[in-house]
């Protein structure tokens, strides 16, 4: 669905992403893992066309990204990223309805249709925000805001989801709820998701594929079983880790070994 080939991105003289090739497939969650500054968020922004690249191509459903206009890209790709600070009072419903912008026939002074409201209310239900519908965004807790961001991304009905640390502000149960939601989208709607995360164990449980990045390069890619090995993780994070089998799922479980 979304494919990057030999992608290179530079900030001034620093190379943020180098020769990276990546492909998101329908029904699959791909996790990007790597140390801080590895270029994970830059990659995510570039896949959406926000950061110009030095070389490489990005193809969306077989078409080069730059041939498509902004609104048609937004109907295909939704982003959940660290939110900007809100300085104007906006209700949760209004915020989520923002996700319907790309579908509006009149992008200027148009008004939300019945269908827009249906979609928004459905995703607000899915993200367990129904009780907060009319509350102002800046009155919500960090976790509630994160869920509103997720709801807005789902409201776009875009088949490709790019998520930058979607679980960062969430408690354990909401982390699971949110990733289950992403999983469900991928299973039922044949969506594709890219999740940038620091939570290796969560990635191990939810992702079909994991790409490990270091210094702008995709060093290893594969299923969680293939890439979450002590050797590879030591290479990436320069830290010894214990990898054993999860007692219930059987997937890899990673524990850092911190020697005093």
């Amino acid at each position, binding site marked *: 669905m979304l494919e990057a080939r030999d992608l290179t991105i530079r900030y001034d003289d620093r190379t943020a992403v180098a020769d990276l090739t990546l492909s998101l497939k329908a029904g699959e969650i791909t996790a990007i893992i790597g140390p801080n500054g590895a270029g994970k968020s830059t990659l995510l922004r570039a896949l959406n066309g*926000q950061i110009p690249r030095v070389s490489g191509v990005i193809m969306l459903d077989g078409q080069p990204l730059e041939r498509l206009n902004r609104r048609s890209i937004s109907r295909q790709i939704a*982003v959940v*990223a660290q939110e*900007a600070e809100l*300085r*104007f*009072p906006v209700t949760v419903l209004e915020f989520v309805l923002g996700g319907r912008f790309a579908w509006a026939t009149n992008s200027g002074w148009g008004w939300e249709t019945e269908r827009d409201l249906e979609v928004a209310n459905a995703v607000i239900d899915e993200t367990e925000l129904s009780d907060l519908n009319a509350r102002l965004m800046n009155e919500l807790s960090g976790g509630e805001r994160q869920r509103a961001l997720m709801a807005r991304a789902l409201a776009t009905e875009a088949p490709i989801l790019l998520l930058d640390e979607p679980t960062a502000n969430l408690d354990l149960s909401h982390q699971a709820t949110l990733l289950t939601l992403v999983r469900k989208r991928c299973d039922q709607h044949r969506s594709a998701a890219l999740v940038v995360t620091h939570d290796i164990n969560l990635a191990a449980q939810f992702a079909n594929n994991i790409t490990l990045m270091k210094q702008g390069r995709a060093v290893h890619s594969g299923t969680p079983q293939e890439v979450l090995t002590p050797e590879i993780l030591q290479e990436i994070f320069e830290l010894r880790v214990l990898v054993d089998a999860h007692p219930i799922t059987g997937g890899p479980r990673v524990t850092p070994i911190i020697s005093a």
Partner: protein
Amino acid sequence: MNRVTLRKTLISCALLGAVLLLAIVSMSLLGSERLPARASLCALASLGSSACGLTQDQFDILFQIRLPRILLAAAVGGSLATAGAGYQALLRNPLAEPYLLGISNGAAVGTMISLVFFGAIEWTRPLLAFSGAFAATFAVYRLARGRAGATPERLILAGVIVTTFLSSVIVFVTTLMDATRIRSFTFWLLGDLSGSSKALLPVAITITILGALALTLHARSLNLLMLGERDAFDLGVEVGRVRMVVFLVASLLVGSSVAASGSVGYVGLVVPHLARLSLGSDNRISIPAAALGGALFVIVADTVARTIIAPRELPVGAITALIGAPLFIYLLKRV
């Protein structure tokens, strides 16, 4: 706050429009020269085709002095409030205001250059005022963008820098003028509707209406830009294009109003804030409401300015600043 709908927007704007019309009529009866109410209303209703028993002097005061001045006040107020609402949404900053950001000063420099060098050619005034406003807008925008993006504080500081720099340019240009014009200039700089040129009235009204329409037609994009440029981009807004439209339209609005009446301050702060407070942050309603409310606000402020110490007059900018500055302090504490 309930979700904004087309119905709510139309009703609010119709109500504001009715109040505005009422204000235009009633304020034209007030002034140092008392006009008979019934006859004046009759003459106004006939749109000047019948004198309805007014003397020629009274008729001239009503139609040649007061009404043009009130209509100009409406255009200036509508322009500045619309521009303020546009800047606030685009710059994600409730404190953004043409006067405080130095944009009015940019337009003032343009106007003064036109007056000093092309005094006889009247159409150069709004044109140079627009150019000055656009240059100042661009300067503030570039100065305010730091590594961490534009914080509200940084934007205001950029505004202070641009304002003070342009103030020195204004002082410099003033020294090129002859002494008799300097006093009227000082008044004009503070925002003054008394010496305004009638030739600019149709231009100012047209620009106000078209400008308010243009920004209202980008309201949905501005709603998303208010949440951040990245978010807006992700959701499908062509950020660069909308930004350029808002910069151009807002500069045009500020330019035409400054060319006509000098720098009336704080209108762009007070009115959009009240609009958002009473109707919500959705630009589809707050921009047209700010345009109508701004017109109303400056008409009332100017009526106060010309009647409170009649027959002498205050510059209208002094009245708007008296109301606006305390509100600014209040907003600064909340941002």
